[in-house]
Structures are given as structure tokens and as C-alpha cells.
């Protein structure tokens, strides 16, 4: 324990000695929460800034897609199964929670396999799993789809709003308005995708990328690794979170994704439409595609009035700079998804009183 303490203070010393203006972005919502909780921000020199990026899957879901989900849940005969995080996300008319109180059959599951079980037990209903998440979650959903297909369950489908992270990072790096000097890369997404996508990003955009874990020590170590590269003018992809992430990633998960999904263009809150950033069922699995099965049209993105989530998600502003933050918008009465989600930057700033 003592040696840990010494090590942490030596990392902090290194970080505090930085005199350049450096902006690092943490891509992952779990990092946003972990950084807020640890109080690391208060220990950084003022010239070193940490920005939150587009790494909260609930937050980056486009407003039009949320409205589509809520309308689907209200159709008769539908059971919508979702992760708990989605329940309070505001749509233009209501949230899923409000839809449920009006009588829609919406159930919270921990795993997509629970949704398959619900389908088995309710053959007279159409069970739709709401597929939201990045490369960490999508393989689990893909396997649920395979299971349903193997078992010949005809009443299970998935509304896939899954997204993949690297194309969004390209958008961030290409935007002249967003100034970032290095990326704290998502630990859990990288378990699946490995280091390769970051090697390309680091090369193409000359940005150091470090895949980092979620303990305070991990994050400090990740920051030091990034600063070392910044100081030396390097741009490499490295793994700090070696005890979990392998350079090649999880090959079984990658294969599963490739088999079940194809990449398509997708809309992101804040980042707009990004080519090859969404996952749609491949032809072989088409019958599981809820979008096709229920002929769900493309909903227009009607922005939530006053909510600046899109700018928060791209690091253009910090949550404080949104005029509604902690005034009209709080976790009890959230206006946008960045305040609803446990991984949202606004929720993190509010909960841990970051000033």
C-alpha cells in the first residue's frame, strides 16, 4: 500500500511539473466518472486540461433515435427490453419511464440474454431488445441474436443503435474547432478492439493514444504516458491497462461482430452523421432487425431546447458552460442525456461538484 502511495505521488509530481498547455480527452464515460470521483482534476496544473469526449453510449444516441424507441415501445404487443440507463432519457414527448407509466411494457435487463428469456416466456408478444452501446456491448447482443435464431424464436428482435468508437475519434481529430493533444482511450472498448485502431489514429492524426484503466493510479499513469509523448513530440498508441487489454483485443468478440453485423453510417448526438460508425444486422440475421421488422421510419433529430449535450460530448464546452447546468438541469430533473446517464459528463460534474 505504502509503495502505491509513493508511486502515486511520483506520478503526480511528474504531472504537476508540466508547463505546456496540454488538453487531453478522456473518451470513455466510465473514465469521466472515475476522474470526477477521484478528484484528479483538482490536482492538475491549470495548463493541463481534461475534456470529456463522446464515450457515453446513452449520451451519443441521436434524439431522433430516442424518439423512435419511445414510439416503438408504445405500440401494442411490444415488450421493450433495455439497460436501465435508458429509462429516464428525455425524448421529445416523454421518456421511456413515462411511457411505461402510461402502460407500455418496458423491462430493464442486465444482459441481452435476459431479453431472449423474456421472448421464450412470452411467445404471444414481440420482444425487442434496445441495442445501445459500443464494441464492449455489441458482441453480447450479437450472441443473443444468434441464440434466438438457433432456437427458432420468432418473437425476438433487436433495435441496433450500436456504435463503434474509432470513426467518432476521427471526427474529433479532424475538427479544427476541437483542440486535443492526446487521448485517454477507453479500457473496456479496447478489450474487444485491441490496439490496432489506435495505432492508425495515432499515425494518421499525429495524436498520442493511451488505453487506460479506471483506478486512480491507472488514470494518473495514463496521463503521465501521454505527457511523455507530448513532450517528445511523439504520437504512438500504447496500453497502460495491460493486465486486462491485449494488443490484439478479443478475437472471438471481433469475429462475432463481423459475422452478425455490418457497419453502416449512423447519427451521433453532437457529432452528426458518421460513415461506418453504426452496426446493422448482416443479411443472414436480417429477420432479427427490429427496424425492418416493424418498419421503423427515420425520425428527425429535434434538439432538446437549451440542452448543450452535443457540445459537451465533443469537448467544445464543459458542463458548467451550459446555462441550464445545475439550474434547470439536475439529476433529479434532467433535461438532456448527459445528465441522465451514469456515465454522462454533466452527471459526473454535478455529482462530484466539479467547479
Amino acid at each position, binding site marked *: 500500500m505504502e509503495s502505491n502511495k509513493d508511486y502515486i505521488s511520483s506520478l503526480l509530481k511528474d504531472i504537476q511539473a508540466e508547463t505546456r498547455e496540454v488538453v487531453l480527452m478522456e473518451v470513455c464515460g466510465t473514465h469521466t466518472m472515475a476522474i470526477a470521483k477521484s478528484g484528479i482534476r483538482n490536482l492538475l496544473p491549470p495548463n493541463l486540461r481534461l475534456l470529456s469526449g463522446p464515450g457515453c453510449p446513452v449520451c451519443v444516441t441521436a434524439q431522433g433515435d430516442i424518439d423512435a424507441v419511445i414510439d416503438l415501445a408504445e405500440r401494442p404487443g411490444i415488450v421493450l427490453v433495455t439497460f436501465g440507463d435508458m429509462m429516464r432519457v428525455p425524448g421529445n414527448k416523454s421518456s421511456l419511464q413515462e411511457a411505461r407509466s402510461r402502460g407500455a411494457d418496458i423491462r430493464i435487463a442486465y*444482459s*441481452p440474454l435476459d431479453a431472449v428469456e423474456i421472448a421464450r416466456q412470452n411467445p404471444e408478444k414481440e420482444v425487442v431488445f434496445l441495442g445501445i*452501446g459500443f464494441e464492449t*456491448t455489441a458482441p453480447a447482443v450479437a*450472441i443473443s441474436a444468434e441464440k434466438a435464431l438457433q432456437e427458432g424464436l420468432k418473437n425476438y428482435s433487436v433495435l441496433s443503435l450500436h456504435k463503434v468508437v474509432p470513426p467518432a475519434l476521427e471526427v474529433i481529430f479532424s475538427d479544427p474547432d476541437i483542440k486535443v493533444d492526446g487521448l485517454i482511450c477507453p479500457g*473496456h472498448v479496447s478489450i474487444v478492439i485491441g490496439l490496432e485502431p489506435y495505432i492508425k489514429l495515432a499515425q494518421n492524426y499525429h495524436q498520442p493514444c493511451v488505453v487506460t484503466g479506471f483506478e486512480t493510479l491507472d488514470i494518473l499513469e495514463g496521463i503521465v504516458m501521454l505527457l511523455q509523448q507530448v513532450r517528445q513530440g511523439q504520437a504512438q498508441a500504447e496500453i497502460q491497462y495491460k493486465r486486462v487489454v491485449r494488443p490484439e483485443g*478479443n478475437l472471438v468478440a471481433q469475429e462475432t461482430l463481423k459475422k452478425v453485423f455490418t457497419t453502416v453510417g449512423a447519427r451521433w448526438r453532437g457529432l452528426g452523421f458518421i460513415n461506418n460508425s453504426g452496426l446493422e444486422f448482416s443479411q443472414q440475421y436480417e429477420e432479427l432487425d427490429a427496424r425492418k421488422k416493424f418498419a421503423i421510419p427515420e425520425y428527425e433529430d429535434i434538439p432538446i431546447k437549451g440542452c448543450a449535450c452535443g457540445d459537451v460530448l465533443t469537448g467544445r464546452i464543459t458542463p458548467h458552460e451550459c446555462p441550464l447546468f445545475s439550474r434547470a438541469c439536475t439529476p433529479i430533473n434532467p433535461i438532456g442525456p448527459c445528465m441522465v446517464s451514469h456515465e454522462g459528463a454533466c452527471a459526473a460534474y454535478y455529482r462530484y461538484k466539479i467547479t
Partner: protein
Amino acid sequence: MCLGVPAKVVEFVEGQMAVVDVDGNQVNISIQLVPDVKIGQYVLVHAGFAMDIVDEDWAKETMQLLKQLQPQPQ
């Protein structure tokens, strides 16, 4: 949602599933994404699936931490 919890594999069950121990609670998860996992190893669990085999010492330390650090909402 992206939170990964380490868990010890206790027993294999049919259908590429396993019973894992998370801090004294036994949970059924799928091991389809880590087909090489062995009994006694630790895995990182996400959305009911083992995502990866993780270092044992680290897993134990994290479980200890999780026990101490209950979330501290406002």
C-alpha cells in the same frame, strides 16, 4: 453501463455458460466470448458476458476495493 466487474469462474454449465462468484454472489454468465477460460480464473464481466480473462492478483484487489467503495451519491 460500461462498468466491468471481475468475477471468479466457479463452474461450467450447459450452453457455454458458467457460474461465477462476484463478491460472494453466484451469477450465471455466458463464456462464449472467452472459450479458453478455466475454472478458478478471473474474468471481467459486462452485460452478462465474460469479456476477458484478467490477472488474478488485480481481480482480487479490485473486488476488495469494490467492497469498500460503495458508490457515494449526493
